[in-house]
């Protein structure tokens, strides 16, 4: 454990130095400012729109962070050959992967905490300007939604680490992670769509249905972590749902990192 922290710390420091993180943050802050303008265009459910905007902004910024900062952090050591220096020390390859992962997770948590604070401020500002439209609003659901989004992003980070353990360039890792995100977000919708294809009037071959059903268990189901609708409308959420989701996120993340460590052990460096 003691060997992990220096790597995690260096990774975090490297990430903070990355300019992209500031660009993403400024972009997110602009969107949160726009929240005040956009939510006031609605007649009834101003609160719902404000929560939608704020939560979506944080999720989207987090996604950009994982894709453009996280993957870079992993690739840099390989591109700049600094990995030889790190691995010449008494650190095993799995330790290196886990340490890097922890560093990235800390970076993600700090950034998301910062953005969430501003998201909450933007919701609060809209709430103060139109308090009557926040009848069913609940802060705890907003916090829970932000927490779930964080778990989902940590999972995606683990997934990107797994990809970078066997690909040779960071671009391929990026493409695979984006694909994995798209599949993860839409898989359960696609599954519903193809299982009820007659509603929208499309014909789907039984082979496709089977492929989707298998993919459903292989790829992470990221849509489980999306409770923005529940948060926006103040709908109740059962404790057992929260429990199983958190457990699912934890298990899948560990699985991906364990796989990454396994593959990375045998990786040949250029």
């Amino acid at each position, binding site marked *: 454990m003691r060997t992990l922290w220096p790597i995690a710390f260096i990774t975090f420091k490297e990430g903070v130095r990355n300019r992209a993180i500031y660009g993403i943050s400024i972009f997110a802050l602009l969107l949160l400012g726009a929240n005040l303008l956009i939510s006031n265009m609605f007649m009834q459910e101003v609160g719902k729109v404000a929560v939608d905007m704020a939560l979506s902004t944080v999720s989207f910024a987090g996604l950009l962070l994982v894709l453009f900062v996280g993957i870079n952090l992993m690739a840099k050591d390989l591109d700049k050959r600094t990995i030889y220096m790190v691995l010449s020390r008494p650190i095993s390859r799995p330790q290196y992967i886990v340490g890097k992962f922890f560093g990235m997770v800390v970076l993600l948590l700090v950034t998301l905490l910062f953005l969430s604070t501003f998201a909450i401020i933007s919701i609060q500002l809209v709430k103060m300007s139109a308090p009557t439209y926040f009848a069913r609003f609940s802060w705890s659901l907003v916090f829970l939604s932000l927490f779930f989004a964080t778990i989902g992003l940590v999972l995606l980070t683990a997934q990107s680490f797994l990809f970078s353990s066997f690909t040779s360039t960071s671009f391929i890792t990026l493409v695979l992670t984006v694909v994995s*995100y798209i599949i993860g977000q839409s898989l359960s919708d696609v599954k519903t769509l193809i299982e009820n294809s007659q509603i929208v009037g499309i014909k789907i071959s039984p082979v496709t249905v089977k492929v989707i059903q298998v993919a459903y268990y292989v790829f992470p189901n990221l849509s489980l972590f999306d409770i923005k609708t529940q948060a926006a409308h103040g709908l109740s959420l059962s404790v057992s749902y929260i429990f199983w989701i958190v457990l699912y996120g934890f298990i899948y993340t560990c699985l991906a990192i364990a796989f990454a460590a396994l593959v990375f052990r045998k990786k040949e460096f250029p």
Partner: protein
Amino acid sequence: MQRLSLIVLILALASAQVFVLGRATEEKNLLPLYQGDDAVMPSPVLKVAVFEFDGLASDFMFLKALVFMGSTLERADLPTLVRTPFKREKKSISIIEEWEWKWLYGILDASTGLDPYFLDPYYVANANLTWGGGLIRETNLLLEKGSRYRNWDWQLPFYVGFNNFFFLHDNIKASEYLMEASRRPGGNPGFASLASKLAYEEHKTEISILLLEEITKTTDDEALKKMYLIRLGALKSILTVEKSVAAYKKRFGKTPRTVEELLQRHVLKELPIDPYGGKYYIDPQGTVRTTSEARLMPGTH
């Protein structure tokens, strides 16, 4: 020297840009309006396409509908913008084409498909698609969906009840939904007794007024409120005429053939004004009608 000429060039290009943009926008407005394209992606497909941002997508779909409704207000002021090759002479006040109503329904349906708990699209659908577009059954389908999801909200079943009663003359379904509305939190318990009265045909106008007053009370939007108040005024005028027809019948033992008879025999002091510019008349069955938009009138089939 070089610096000065660059600055002059930039200033010239900037002003040219403003001028050209103006002309280009004008030209774009002169393009024929695209016609009849009322297709909207079905919401199950959209749901897949927008990843985790379906709430936000639903908001923007709804904004699109709002922008469209706003642009139709402009049409009345700018008749030249409605291109002649596609302009159809229509009697009604609205200059929204039939396919545009269908498109509006499609986009509101998609918006609520992405987020079925979102109240605003239901609200706008109920206010516009029914009175203006005549898409009563479609609107009710939408509202019934909303009523299923928003099971704490009395307004949506109330609207379904009203539409069934007022437009579709389905009193059984109307009373079912009014009962449902009365049971939900915030719903007026008086709806229940109103629901039981629906069976009596002769109180149609009065019940319509009561229900419409309830809708007006819960409307915050000024433009919508104004529209509802005009409709209420029309209904109240009809009620006045209907009441004097009943009084005439009682006094003279027969139905008046024209509204002028009511005035001549001093049953009615003066004829109320139809806010839609029509004239009241009595049809051979003895029902009071107006020459303005017929679909505003309860009891016309």
